[in-house]
């Protein structure tokens, strides 16, 4: 019998139950670990299908660089298995220790600092199986590292927040982990100086895996991780100075390095009670936005070489909505109780609306997202 607890959550453990639940529900939200609480919220009138029992690695071929996993599987479980074979998910999933699942990582489309090196979850998701609004199992993509057949449904699911269906099984491309890494911080008095050094690094041949900017009191620290074989890393470390413009640097010990990036990936630098917002941007747009943020005192980090801002906002959201709009930027609320999932300048557009109409004509999966435009 499917297990149901007090809030009518269903936790199916086999596929027939899973499918039955989708067929029987008029309005449905799939839920993984709930680590992105703003995205996992269950709107009124929606049933919740909890994937806690829908777990397991169904196929792993280390020599193929591929792994296939049920959507409810904790990322930590997958990461542990990959590490045994010297491999990793190169998009560097977030909130792993907090309990993020593979399905939630895909649906939220969030990437950690390590996405800088080889790409985001969109670049490593090869295949997807999901239950559509009728409860039928749909497969898209494939299980090999290269495939160009059919529309790329796996990519469509990335960041979709479950609006097209319930993710059931996912196949990823994996890569070898770097044999060793070093993390170095370089401090600058202004954001512009930190960015200028960052740009030099992004154009350099150095094998950079992570590249974040951490604003502090009167200083901006450029943190970056280099990866590779130890001998090669030593030589790269020597070359660094030419790109850093004489900045004061600090090298983290191996232990501190782990703690440092763990803090970033688990958002330990901010309080879970604040609103956490993801803002995609570019280094130039980041510089303009930073001008407006610098006096505000909100905790924040720029990640992936100025391509994303993680902003912890502890006052009312209306002002952030206006600020983002004025910069023509949009933000996704990851933690917090915002009425909308998206703030700032964001419009789904006609293409998105047509895809939604095609895949979920009855809005069964509208659920977990409080889109600013409910028509999507």
């Amino acid at each position, binding site marked *: 019998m499917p297990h149901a607890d007090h809030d009518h959550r269903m936790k199916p453990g086999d596929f027939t139950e899973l499918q039955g639940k989708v067929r029987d529900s008029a309005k449905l939200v799939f839920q993984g670990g709930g680590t992105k609480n703003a995205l996992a919220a269950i709107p009124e009138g929606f049933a919740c299908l909890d994937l806690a029992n829908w777990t397991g690695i169904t196929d792993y071929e280390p020599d*193929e660089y591929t792994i296939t996993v049920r959507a409810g599987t904790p990322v930590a479980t997958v990461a542990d298995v990959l590490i045994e074979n010297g491999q990793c998910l190169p998009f560097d999933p977030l909130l792993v220790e907090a309990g993020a699942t593979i399905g939630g990582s895909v649906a939220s489309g969030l990437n950690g600092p390590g996405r800088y090196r080889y790409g985001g979850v969109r670049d490593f998701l090869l295949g997807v199986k999901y239950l559509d609004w009728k409860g039928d199992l749909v497969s898209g993509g*494939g299980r*090999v590292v290269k495939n160009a057949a059919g*529309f790329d449904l796996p990519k469509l699911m990335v960041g979709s927040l479950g609006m097209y269906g319930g993710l059931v099984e996912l196949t990823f491309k994996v890569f070898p982990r770097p044999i060793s890494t070093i993390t170095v911080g370089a401090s600058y008095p202004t954001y512009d100086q930190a960015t200028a050094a960052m740009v030099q690094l*992004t*154009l350099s041949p150095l094998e950079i895996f992570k590249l974040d900017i951490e604003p502090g009191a009167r200083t901006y620290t450029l943190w970056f991780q280099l990866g590779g074989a130890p001998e090669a890393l030593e030589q790269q470390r020597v070359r660094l100075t030419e790109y850093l413009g004489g900045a004061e640097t600090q090298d983290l010990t191996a232990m501190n390095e782990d703690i440092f990036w763990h803090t970033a990936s688990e958002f330990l630098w901010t309080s879970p009670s604040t609103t956490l917002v993801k803002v995609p941007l*570019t280094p130039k747009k980041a510089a303009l936005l930073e001008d407006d943020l610098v006096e505000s005192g909100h905790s924040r980090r720029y990640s992936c070489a100025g391509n994303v801002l993680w902003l912890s906002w502890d006052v009312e959201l209306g002002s952030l909505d206006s600020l983002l709009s004025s910069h023509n930027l949009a933000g996704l609320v990851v933690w917090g109780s915002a009425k909308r999932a998206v703030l700032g300048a964001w419009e789904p557009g006609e293409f998105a609306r047509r895809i939604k109409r095609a895949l979920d004509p009855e809005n069964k999966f509208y659920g977990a997202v409080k889109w600013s435009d409910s028509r999507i």
Partner: protein
Amino acid sequence: MTRDDLRDGLAAIYPAERLLTNPAQLVSYESDALTSYRERPAVVVLAETQAEVIETVGVCHALGVPFVARGSGTSLSGGSLPVPGGVVIALNRLNRIIKIDPDERIAIVETGVINLEVTKAAAPYGLLYAPDPSSQPICTIGGNLAFNSGGAHCLKYGMTSNHILGLRVVLPDGEVVDLGGESVESIGPDLVGLYVGSEGLFGIALQATLRLLPKPEASQTVLAAYNSLAAAGETVSEIVASGLVPAALEIMDNLAIQAAEAAVQAGYPLDCEGLLIVELDGEEASVAHDFVELMRIIHASEAYQVVVAQDADERLQIWKGRKSAFSAVGRLSPDYIVQDGVVPRSRLSEALLDIQHLGDKYELRVANVFHAGDGNLHPLILFDGRTPGVLEKAEQLAGDILQLCVDYGGSITGEHGIGMEKRAFMPLMFSEVDMDTLHTIHRQIDPQGLSNQGKMFPS
């Protein structure tokens, strides 16, 4: 609709010299690189601006006339085959490089830009556009993104889709939408990801924002010759298992080597049954380290001859042979079909043996060139189309090879796309529910089914 309505509608957009209707002018647009398919369009227009493309799509939509966007016509799957009586919108003149921004490492280009031109424009900043299909010197970005083209360096760098950040597209009914942006991060569903590889069925991409990468500082390119394909394949497995991520891992069989040598004298050993090409690239110290490891693996393998490119010219020469292999095979045979299936890397040797047996069964020669690192096969089936029944036999063999790829858990196309050529084979890979889903999406985007009509879906 009459043909006059169409001609009047287009004549309002294009001057006479860019509106081709004369059969002698149309003939060169009748097919692409899949030359066994040929159809005559009613009109070819040579668009120079995005506005012209948008207006053309508007006219076609209003009159219910099918249209096909065409770049350089290098599709190997018949992806830009015209529709009889339809319009071909040629995009080669829609070729402005709008912006190269080295600080943000992006290029914004119109979709008629030639792939290699992007890398040339980015080179002064030490940047490159990574996707490098063999047709790189002539194929366009628009064609690349419509078919999610690959290339020799996909193992490390991914396919076209991994390098497109934003798009401006005209949907099949003339509506213009912007997808994605200039950041590598985004929110909401990955619509750019869905659009790329949609084979022209979602309208026409007008402009694309491309991700640029720093040009690798160092590279090492190694040729290793083996007495069997299996031994070359075994070495690929060893390299992959070692934790190295080579930029490229390619294998050619004897027939392909013979053809390439005859065409470009790349210096390949002619007696070799399996030739492995491995390329490492990246930061100098890293490449030096990885090279030692690579050579250890190759020397421990059954390679009977190993050549390391000593400079950029030698490296180019090695690649010239590989990249010319398809056209070179034309020297061995009046006609050929190139297939593009994928098998799991570890099943490569078995799959190649099966292909050899199938070739024997059909009494047709098959040359093999493949991206071994990705398990992406390119069997070239040689035949003489002048002999009655042989084309059909070659197509049957091609179909058997695709079935074999699916049976091994792979794909019917790694990088050439479905196009016209493989549309009948889609149901091998996708269930009825899967196909219904693809159809449903297609119908919502293009209810009249005008944009690149006939591609991807079985007729």
